[in-house]
């Protein structure tokens, strides 16, 4: 499989604090990677850099051949629109847009909107009857499924999921994990931050962080490359 993500000696500092300190690893296209570690270990910082939401202090973070560290603001914007699909722990839906409009918002910033396609994406995550509902009218699990549909709508190369089940009950957690499993089977590349070892075991590989360092990789099927 071709390498989709290549991280080389990545460093991120917030003042005197080193959130990432010389992290290196690779992810092949189609892999499902679980990024694990305690709070403050740098997991979310890594996801943010790979998703173009933040920039590294040093090192390389190459996504689909593009070094994120070298992109300007406009380049980062295009990267996020065209190559990345985000799923956040807190869902982050626009509160005054309906479910289908939240999905269409991602289409709008990517290229052009297609309401039918957005509806199909929501139908796929089991929200056929919730298309015109506002986020406040949806349960947490339903909101996260809207977020999954939104992340998928532009067919991104890389799905970045930051604690996607962190705010869900067991039943909804299972629904969302089933969706991620489906995406993985279809060949999507997924980097998922999680605290839960049981969820981490669903991934092809686990990469574990502590204090900004990569302490363990290749815990699962594939050898780590750091």
């Amino acid at each position, binding site marked *: 499989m071709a390498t989709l993500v290549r991280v080389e000696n990545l460093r991120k500092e917030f003042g005197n604090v080193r959130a990432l300190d010389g992290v290196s690893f690779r992810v092949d296209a189609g892999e499902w990677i679980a990024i694990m570690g305690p709070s403050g270990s740098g997991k979310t910082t890594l996801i943010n850099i790979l998703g173009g939401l933040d920039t590294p202090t040093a090192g390389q973070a190459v996504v689909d051949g593009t070094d994120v560290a070298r992109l300007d603001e406009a380049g980062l*914007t295009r990267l996020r*629109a065209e190559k990345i699909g985000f799923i956040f722990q807190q869902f*982050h839906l626009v509160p005054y847009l309906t479910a289908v*409009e939240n999905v269409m918002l*991602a289409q*709008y*910033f990517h290229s052009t*909107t297609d309401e039918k396609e957005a509806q199909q994406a929501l139908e796929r995550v089991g929200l056929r009857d919730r298309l015109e509902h506002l986020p406040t009218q949806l349960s947490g699990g339903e909101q996260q499924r809207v977020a999954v549909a*939104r992340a998928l709508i532009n067919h991104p190369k890389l799905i970045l999921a930051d604690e996607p089940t962190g705010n869900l009950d067991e039943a909804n957690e299972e629904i969302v994990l089933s969706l991620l499993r489906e995406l993985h089977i279809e060949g999507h590349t997924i980097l998922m931050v999680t605290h839960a070892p049981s969820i981490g075991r669903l991934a092809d590989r686990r990469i574990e962080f502590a204090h900004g360092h990569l302490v363990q990789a290749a815990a699962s099927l594939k050898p780590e490359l750091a």
Partner: protein
Amino acid sequence: MMFWRLVFQLLRGSRGRLAVAILAIVSGAAVTSALLNLDLGVQNKLTQEFRTLGANIVISPPDVQQSVDGGSAGPVLFDENVLEIGIESVPEPNVVASAPFLYVIGKAAEKPVVIVGTLMDELRKFEPTWQLDGGWISSREDATRCLVGQNVARQFHLKPGSSLRLTYADRTAELTVSGVVSAGGPDDSQIFVNLPVAQRLAATGGVSVWQVSVGGSPKVVADYAARITAALPQYQVRPIRQVAEAEGALLGRIRLLIVSMVLLILILTALCVLGTMAALAMERRKDVGLMKSLGGSISRIVGIFLAEVGVLGAAGGLLGTILGAALSYWMGLRVFGTAIAPRWEVFPVTIALMIVVTLAGALPLRMLGNVKPAEILRGA
């Protein structure tokens, strides 16, 4: 399409927060529109008032006796033809009406009455605000009809269609009343006939004065009077200067007052919108962070917000302008004693002003450009 859908949903979703801004815009637009309507309306009203005074230039021989009295002393009159040639030699596009007048004190039913001979087709132009029961006399050749003032009509029990016999010495004129004039002044006590009728009664070919009504600013009137004076040096040319200058000065003061108030209102509206938008910009940081994470450029995101603000300004401006028209109508009645009709040109001007003011008030949205999505989404 999605752009306007987003704008609409933004407006709907933030209607509570935007209520204060909407109120400020509607109020600002209403007062601005009312003041602009008043400004234009008062000018019209004053011009109308000015014109109800009739002529604003009177041409007469020096020390002329302006009426022919009961047939006793011989009248001091002048030749209308000489004047007409002199006046026509001074072209002026702002002349509204121009006519000779002969005043004769004749009798009707053995009671003295003031008979005014003039060009009846010009009279209507001199006196556009007269209220007339009946019809105007549109031909200066009509020697069979007259207009009578309402006091004369009351005194002799006349109405449109009544017959009226006028006498002067041993001469008579049999006339039919075409209309009854309500002018609110001395005209109500006069009888108006075509000039040849009055000249035949008075057995004269002359006229008492020549009057001209000139539109435009006091300066236009003064310039025209000066040129007439130069063309007719042997005559007295008297612009009714006090009225014209008072009108000009009053208009200038009213305009200064209104422009100052409009500026103040616009600044206050912008400040109010500014306050609301500053709070809204803080609220929307999370939305902006999310939109950025979805690949939205700051120009596209702020574009949506600016369109929202523009729609707010336009809608508030439209509503306020309509309210302002009603307000100016009411203010006209209360302050000036006369209703001021809304002016259509005020609508686009007010709405455009409100859009500009609202966009100026939206300056705090600039701070959204600094939103770092990673910080916002982490802290949310």
